[in-house]
Structure formats: structure tokens, C-alpha cells
């Protein structure tokens, strides 16, 4: 193995110091996740904040523990295709539920129903 190979191999050496720092960050973020739930925020804000912290945690594990940071383009492409496939399956379904909720929510039902507000006008 040439000196060049040795140097490049060292670049890919597991960084124990970095792992310890990531562990600390994950623990702090876990405390933050629990603290957010104790704030008893309205649900949309609580979900948005909780999801945001979970994404940061998952990003840290993926990028640094799974070495996705600096991983081959082939692996990145495979993952993007997976994410795209999942989005194609999931997003239309969620959109359908959102639309269905809008149609069947109480005010809309009242306005569409013959015995609702419009019926009283007649």
C-alpha cells in the first residue's frame, strides 16, 4: 500500500471524538424533545417542533454514524430514489385525507345539508 493510500485510508478512519460529540448532541436533543411535550403547546406547533427535532437527530445519526456524509454518490442516489418513491406513495394519500376532512368538517356539512343554514333561507 502506498503512502497515498495510507493517507486516504486515514481520512476514512472512524472518528471516535466525533462520535462522542454526536452522542452528547443526541442526548440534549432527546431532552429537548421531552421538554417540548411538557410545554403543552397546541398540537400543530407541538408536532412541527417535535418533527423538526427528530429530523435533526435522524440527520446526525445518518450523516455521522452511518457515514452518509462523504458517502459514495451511488448510495446517495439509491436513497433519493427511495425517498422519492415513498413521497409518491404517501403524499397523494395524505392529500386525499386532507381534502376528505375539508369536505366532511362540520361547517361544510352544515352548509351543504338541506336542514342547515341554507335550508332556513328557503
Amino acid at each position: 500500500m502506498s503512502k497515498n493510500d495510507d493517507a486516504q485510508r486515514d481520512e476514512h478512519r472512524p472518528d471516535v471524538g466525533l462520535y462522542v460529540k454526536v452522542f452528547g448532541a443526541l442526548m440534549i436533543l432527546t431532552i429537548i424533545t421531552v421538554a417540548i411535550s411538557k410545554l403543552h403547546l397546541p398540537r400543530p406547533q407541538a408536532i412541527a417542533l417535535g418533527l423538526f427535532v427528530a429530523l435533526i437527530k435522524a440527520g446526525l445519526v445518518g450523516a455521522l454514524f452511518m457515514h452518509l456524509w462523504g458517502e459514495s454518490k451511488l448510495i446517495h442516489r439509491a436513497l433519493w430514489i427511495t425517498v422519492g418513491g415513498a413521497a409518491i406513495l404517501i403524499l397523494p394519500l395524505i392529500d386525499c385525507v386532507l381534502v376528505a376532512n375539508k369536505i366532511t368538517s362540520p361547517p361544510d356539512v352544515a352548509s351543504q345539508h338541506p336542514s342547515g343554514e341554507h335550508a332556513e333561507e328557503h
Partner: protein
Amino acid sequence: MSQTYNPAAIMGNADTHSGVTNAKLGVWLFLASEIMLFATLFTSYIVLRMGSTSWPWGWDVLNVPLATLNTVILISSSVTIVMAYAKAYDKDKSGFQRWMAATILLSLGFLVVKAFEYGHEFALGIGPHTSVFYAIYFTMTGLHGLHILGGVAVNGGLLYMSAREEHWRNPLFLGRVEGAGLYWHFVDIVWIFLFPALYLL
């Protein structure tokens, strides 16, 4: 011809002409299928939750302190397995065995805590039949628990193999440890999303 860095040479696997070993590519494709599996479950969770007229707060009906303990255990195990990989990289046999044993113990700890949680719920007569919330809770955490069990089996196998010198001479061994680590981190990521989704929000 100039020599270039080749991870496949270090890991001892056949080169895929992309700088990625066959084993690593295989593990990532397996993880891609796992992402799709859990994505469908999370979609079911979102659709059922959005379609429900009421949905309980996780901390009203589930044991948040135990789940928080399990989160700490799983994050710790992610660190121990990456330390095991670092030791395997340095061909430090006893270091690898120590960290891998710690990973397995933490994994078993996770399962024991989960068993306590399930046991308490079953004792109260709560099961998947109780409500849509509990149905999705038991399905998702149960499937995640099975993945933990699978990880224990793989990591236990690697620990067993590490006792024999011939495996340390085999350049494929490091690739196997890396693959097991990737799988374990994925299981950790799934829990990172399950914990707030079911217990906190």
C-alpha cells in the same frame, strides 16, 4: 497506473466499479426496502390520526418515562456499535468484543423495558383491539421490537465470530461489522421518529 484509494480493497470485497463494496450496497438496498416498509406504516398512522375525530395525547395513555429511558438506551447502543466498528477497523479484538457486548446488553435492556411496558398494558386489559391508537402503537412498536431482536441476533453472531482468529484475518469481517452497524443505526432512526409520534405528540 497510479494507485487510488479503494474502500473495496480495504473491506476485501469485490469492487462494484463505484467505490462501494457489494456488501455495503446490498445493506443499503435492504435498508431502502425497510424505509419503504416503515414509511407505509407512518403513512397509515398519519391517515388514521387525521381521519379520527379524537386522538389521545401519548403522554396521557403511555409510559413516557420508560420510553425516554429506552430512547437513551438505543442512542447509547448506536454509539457503542460505532465504537465497536472503530475497534474492528483498528483490529483491536478485545476492544471490539467489549463494545459489541455492550451493544447487545443495551439492546436486551431495550427489550426488557419494552416487555415491562407491554406487560403493564396487557395487565390493564389494553391491547391492539382497544382502539385505533393502540392498534397502530402495538403494530409499530412491535415491528420495531422485532427489528431489535434481529439486530441482537446479527450482533451476537459477529461477537461469536470475533472469538476466532480466522475471522480477523478475513478482510470481509470489517464489512460485516459495518453492515451490522448500518442496520442498527437505521433501527435507532426509526425509534427517533416513533418516540415523539406515539408518546409525545
